[in-house]
């Protein structure tokens, strides 16, 4: 079965979908990505769907699920490169994909992730030792 490659670039996992998204492929990606986020400890996920001609309701929902899973694992997801035809179809279907952040292309998606504070750093203990 086909698998979607997941590439690690710095603190970001880049998923570029260059094949037809069949339901099994989408579910496999969901699983693989969750594993990779935990394995690498990355804080951002960019999913490039510029190669997709068709995004059906299942794939749309899977993308939303992937975003939700990543959030639980402390990684922000940005879906990038959605084609106009795909966007129009999704709107006509009434799927506005709430909870998914989007950007026009990979570059802008990476920028978006760089701008958002990925996680709140653990506050330094500014205790000067006066415990008595």
């Amino acid at each position, binding site marked *: 079965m086909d698998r979607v490659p997941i590439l690690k670039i710095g603190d970001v996992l880049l998923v570029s979908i260059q094949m037809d998204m069949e339901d099994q492929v989408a579910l496999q990606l969901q699983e693989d990505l969750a594993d990779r986020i935990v394995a690498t400890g990355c804080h951002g996920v960019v999913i490039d769907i510029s190669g997709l001609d068709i995004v059906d309701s299942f794939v749309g929902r899977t993308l939303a699920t992937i975003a939700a899973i990543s959030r639980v694992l402390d990684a922000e997801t940005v879906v990038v490169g*959605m084609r*106009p035809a795909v*966007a129009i179809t999704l709107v006509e279907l009434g799927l*506005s994909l709430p909870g998914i952040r989007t950007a*026009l292309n990979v570059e802008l998606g990476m920028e978006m992730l760089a701008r958002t504070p990925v996680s709140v750093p653990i506050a330094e203990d500014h205790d000067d030792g006066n415990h008595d």
Partner: protein
Amino acid sequence: MVAVPLVGTLDSARAQVVMERPLQTLVDTGSPYAIIDITGVPAVDTQVAQHILKTVVAARLMGADCIISGIRPQIAQTIVALGIEFGDIATKASLADALRHVIALTGLKKQER
């Protein structure tokens, strides 16, 4: 940014073009903002409003922000009378206002970097 000044009546065939062209331009130019200016549109019925709304939502899905400008008083009244909800879509009185808004937004980002 991409500016879309609409002039003339929008029938359904034209509305389709109005929907697709700006979205394709967003992809081609990689600009994250689009302004749809409807100063030159004489009448807005439910279908036209629906098309404009769909364009805005589609642009948002693609990762671009869409601003609607130039809604004339009569059109604003029509839109409200027809019960069309523009929701959280940004609207500005004039194209100049919309441009100022986008410039302020992009300027802000440059400072942040």
